[in-house]
């Protein structure tokens, strides 16, 4: 066992974990104040349920021995008992390190979807959706890409798919699911006519900062080593993100007249998403170019929902799906063996068109699968438990209706009331 590698991967797991509260705050700041707690709860709720499923059968489905091309063995690591043994001779790190590192990816990916569903989805239906989508979509797709499934095995004329840290499995996957569910769920009441301004942009920037920090573990940890590749991934994670933030601000300055803090935070996330699949396979200059492209394209893509009429509340599609596509497809041009020794080259570095082709097949395959499955799950929930809040509860505030809380107690007036006892719902009944 290599204690240096083990230490770095355990650290990376904690870094990726921090992205989950970071994501919650990034989204939560964009909510109106009456629904911010619901968004935090959606992200945290997904973490709870997916974390447990990951231990029971998720890791096994993603990383168990492959049964054909689609999904790993359900039983190899069922309940993680097989992962308890110390590492075999020659293994750099224990299996359990991989379990906990990849658990964070699963929890984060499901949480990403919540950003499209602000203010209006029944909390119980969301938790069920999170559990079923993780089981039917994320675990198999992680197997496709990293566990030995069809994307990992895809080979056209020697070209193989590059997805270093999750452009397809994480971002395109979550973005396509978000698109399907937000269409089925429907628009927020009043959208887009009613102003729904972000209630706390400092919270958005704080969340983006936490995401960026954690992303160094997400990308550089995906090297599964504390080596040159990890350092290249970390450097590119800085550079592409700077470039994307800058590009987003330039688009805003030209299009809207002002560079905004929400634009900066959005550009940060767009850059992080785009560099995710590419972080170990592009040069630093390639990362900057990729970031510029991703920032500009995503800044344009977030306006599409107004033209097409779907309420992707906080732009999971415009940033994660589109950013994931940009990063995944750009590898067909920007991949360079200068960064990854013995790696593949994109068209700009004298590689063949086949690399672009396999990237496209992987991206489209994940996108279609996730979109269709997420849509079916949402439709079934809509027909059974229901997925949409009552009109009154949505307008009055989902936090009060679903969680019986208030996010902010500001000032003295209106804070009065009476203590109604502990351990029963007397107070809630009285209010009804």
């Amino acid at each position, binding site marked *: 066992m290599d204690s240096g590698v083990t230490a770095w991967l355990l650290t990376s797991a904690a870094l990726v974990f921090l992205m989950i509260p970071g994501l919650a705050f990034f989204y939560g700041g964009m909510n109106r104040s009456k629904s911010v707690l619901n968004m935090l709860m959606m992200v945290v709720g997904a973490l709870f349920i997916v974390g447990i499923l990951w231990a029971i059968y998720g890791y096994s489905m993603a990383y168990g021995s492959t049964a054909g091309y689609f999904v790993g063995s359900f039983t190899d690591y069922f309940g993680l008992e097989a992962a308890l043994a110390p590492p075999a001779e020659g293994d750099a790190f224990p299996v359990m390190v991989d379990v906990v590192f990849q658990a964070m990816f699963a929890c984060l990916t499901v949480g990403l979807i919540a950003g499209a569903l602000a203010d209006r989805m029944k909390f119980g239906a969301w938790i069920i959706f999170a559990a079923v989508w993780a089981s039917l979509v994320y675990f198999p797709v992680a197997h496709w890409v990293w566990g030995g499934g069809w994307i990992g095995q895809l080979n056209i004329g020697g070209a193989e798919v590059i997805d270093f840290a999750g452009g397809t499995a994480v971002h395109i996957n979550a973005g396509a699911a978000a698109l399907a569910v937000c269409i089925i769920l429907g628009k927020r009441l009043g959208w*887009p006519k009613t*102003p729904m*301004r*972000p209630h706390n942009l400092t919270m958005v920037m704080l969340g983006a900062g936490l995401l960026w920090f954690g992303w160094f573990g997400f990308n550089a940890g995906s090297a599964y080593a504390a080596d040159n590749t990890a350092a290249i991934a970390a450097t590119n994670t800085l550079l592409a993100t700077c470039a994307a933030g800058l590009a987003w601000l330039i688009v*805003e300055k030209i*299009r*809207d*007249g*002002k560079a*905004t803090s*929400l*634009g900066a935070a*959005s550009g940060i996330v767009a850059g992080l998403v785009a560099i995710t699949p590419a972080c170990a396979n592009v040069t630093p200059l390639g990362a900057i170019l990729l970031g510029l492209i991703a920032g500009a394209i995503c*800044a344009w893509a*977030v*306006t599409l929902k*107004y033209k097409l009429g779907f309420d992707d509340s906080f*732009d999971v599609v415009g940033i994660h799906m589109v950013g994931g596509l940009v990063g995944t497809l750009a590898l067909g041009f920007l991949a360079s063996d200068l960064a990854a020794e013995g790696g593949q080259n994109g068209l700009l570095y004298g590689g063949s068109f086949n690399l672009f082709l396999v990237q496209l097949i992987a991206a489209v395959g994940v996108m279609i699968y996730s979109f269709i499955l997420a849509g079916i799950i949402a439709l079934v929930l809509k027909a059974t438990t229901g997925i949409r809040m009552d009109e009154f509860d949505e307008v009055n505030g989902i936090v009060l209706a679903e969680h019986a809380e208030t996010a902010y107690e500001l000032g003295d007036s209106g804070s009065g009331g009476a203590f109604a006892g502990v351990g029963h719902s007397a107070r809630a009944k009285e209010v009804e």
Partner: protein
Amino acid sequence: MKLVTAIIKPFKLDDVKTAVEALDVHGMTVSEASGFGRQRGHTEVYRGAEYTVELVPKVRIEIVIDDDRAGDVIDAIVGAAQTGKIGDGKVWAVPVDSVVRVRTGETGAEAL
């Protein structure tokens, strides 16, 4: 007695307070307010989506004062709050029937 109410630009509060204190006025009530007059708000842009914010943040000042000094107080507020730009606000006065100081029970001018 008169109740003088002023709606002014928030950043002018300190200037107005200083000007009114110079007249030996013993107290005022300040609250945050929002509304519109001729100014009609401003535009904000979030991820390319433009919103018109029609209610503009203002500060409301309330001062209860003897009838014969109300004119001076109003002049002081107007003088200090004026920028000459749209949205400077309004000042008005209305008659007050009675005033009681809660601590002592004094009434009328004694309570000010």
